[in-house]
């Protein structure tokens, strides 16, 4: 037998190509769970006028000071006013994608488009925010957990109790590295008594991937891959905090420049199209001005546990 028409010979090789591009695209593995809208974070609002830095006061009112007993005509002395000033300076974060007219024309997926890339840049802005937040929660002076010891339910409770003992009002937010979370969940799995029957315990066991894992003792629990390492990589440093521990400031840029092609104007995030006719290229450029400040250290606890 001869001249069989096969995939790679006998003429068949001219009928096929090595691979055909699919219209389907799949997203690569990444943590995409944003903490931008967590109510425990204080949005410091207000536009910046006259300075790139915003200062604000933290004051001791509404029960911070107690009254002193005085006799009938005894003079009441002035109370020293407790206040502190905090500052926050938003900085410019940016991301750009650039593609040629040619690749855009032959791209079968349609992702090389201003609309799709703008959407992606918004996701990147959210995760940049979360990454920067993670760099704040490892800085609290109060800590729970122990170096090189895997996180347990006791560590979680220790963090919660320290906040309660420090008079921190709820609701609390707990951010853990996935490894910290699974160590805790693993310990929860072995618990008896009341803990094993808690609905919240069951909720923690349901696999959901990164992001919101559920609520335990009224504390919103998130796992995030952005949580930072500590002790030369021996540990992870997540954290738990109440509202008022960490604030953030975003800067809306105001009216765009004349001639600007604005694709997305989402408050502090702006995505613009930058067209180069001479080279036949299109760039999608996103900017996000934001900054973080620790408002009151005692409102947060850093949770240290083994990697």
């Amino acid at each position, binding site marked *: 037998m001869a001249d069989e028409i096969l995939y790679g010979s006998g003429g068949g090789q001219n009928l096929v190509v090595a691979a055909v591009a699919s219209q389907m695209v799949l997203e690569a593995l990444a943590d995409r769970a944003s903490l931008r809208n967590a109510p425990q974070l204080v949005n410091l609002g207000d536009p910046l006028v006259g300075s790139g830095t915003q200062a604000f006061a933290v004051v001791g009112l509404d029960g911070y000071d107690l009254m002193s007993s005085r006799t009938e005509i005894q003079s009441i002395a002035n109370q020293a006013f407790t206040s502190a000033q905090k500052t926050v300076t938003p900085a410019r974060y940016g991301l750009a994608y650039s593609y040629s007219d040619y690749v855009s024309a032959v791209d079968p997926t349609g992702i090389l488009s201003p609309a799709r890339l703008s959407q992606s840049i918004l996701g990147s802005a959210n995760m940049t925010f979360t990454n*920067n937040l993670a760099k704040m929660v490892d800085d609290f002076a109060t800590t729970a957990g122990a170096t090189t010891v895997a996180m347990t339910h006791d560590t979680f409770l220790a963090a919660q109790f320290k906040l309660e003992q420090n008079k921190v009002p709820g609701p609390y937010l707990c951010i853990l590295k996935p490894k910290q979370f699974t160590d805790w969940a693993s310990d929860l799995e072995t618990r008896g008594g009341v803990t094993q029957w808690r609905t919240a315990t069951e909720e923690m066991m349901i696999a959901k991937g990164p992001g919101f894992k559920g609520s335990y003792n009224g504390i919103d629990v998130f796992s995030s891959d952005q949580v*930072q390492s500590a002790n030369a990589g*021996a540990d992870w440093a997540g954290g738990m905090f109440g509202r008022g521990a960490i604030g953030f400031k975003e800067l809306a840029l105001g009216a765009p420049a004349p001639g600007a092609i604005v694709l997305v104007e989402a408050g502090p995030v702006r995505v613009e199209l930058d067209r180069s006719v001479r080279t036949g290229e299109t760039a999608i450029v996103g900017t996000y001005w934001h900054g973080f400040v620790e408002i009151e250290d005692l409102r947060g606890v850093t949770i*240290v546990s083994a990697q």
Partner: protein
Amino acid sequence: MPVEPAKQTSKAAHTSKATKGSKPVAVPKERPTGFPLNASSNFIFMAHPMRWDVFPVGNGEYEILPLLTKLEFQAGIAGVLPVKGKDLQDGDPSWALLAKQQSGWQAIPADTEVTAFGEKEVGYVHFVENDRGEYSHLSVWERPYMLGSSVFFDRDQDGYIQFLRHCKTNILPPMDQNVGKALQAKLKELASLAKNSATPRGKETAEEINARIEAIKKVSK
């Protein structure tokens, strides 16, 4: 405080060699050569009088040493200011350092002499290039390497412990002035961990935790 620039180390701690007789495989020309790590800024270690921990130092021994944190020089974070004409990673930490110091934090000088992986060095920060051409700053006791497409780290925990001892002995205020309350709180927390030795996890760690408690008791006397 003068801030020493971080030093760059080799891109790849581990390289693969072609097996004898194997055929070369076409590799895309623009294959990224750095590590799949997030970009991160230069930093300075900070210590706080309330942050101490019981570190395992080998041979079943434990020591009370400072639990440091990093102040990254990344503009927008914790009061680090952007510097005109520079990347966000090269922010000005002066304000941030001042704010931290007012809250009781103390900076560990960036030009501290350290030993990492058996070699003496000046400065505790180095950086490697990531797969996007940016820099990822790490402590000198961490060296990344690739296994397949994942990044792992060689760690010199002994070198880091030695550094913490140096901080405690030569840089930070004497521990007995500050550490009492913090240690007592830690003692209660560890006791709580050991108390739950009825669980498999508790049994596993109770012995180690009790050794740590003994270490605390030694310095608390």
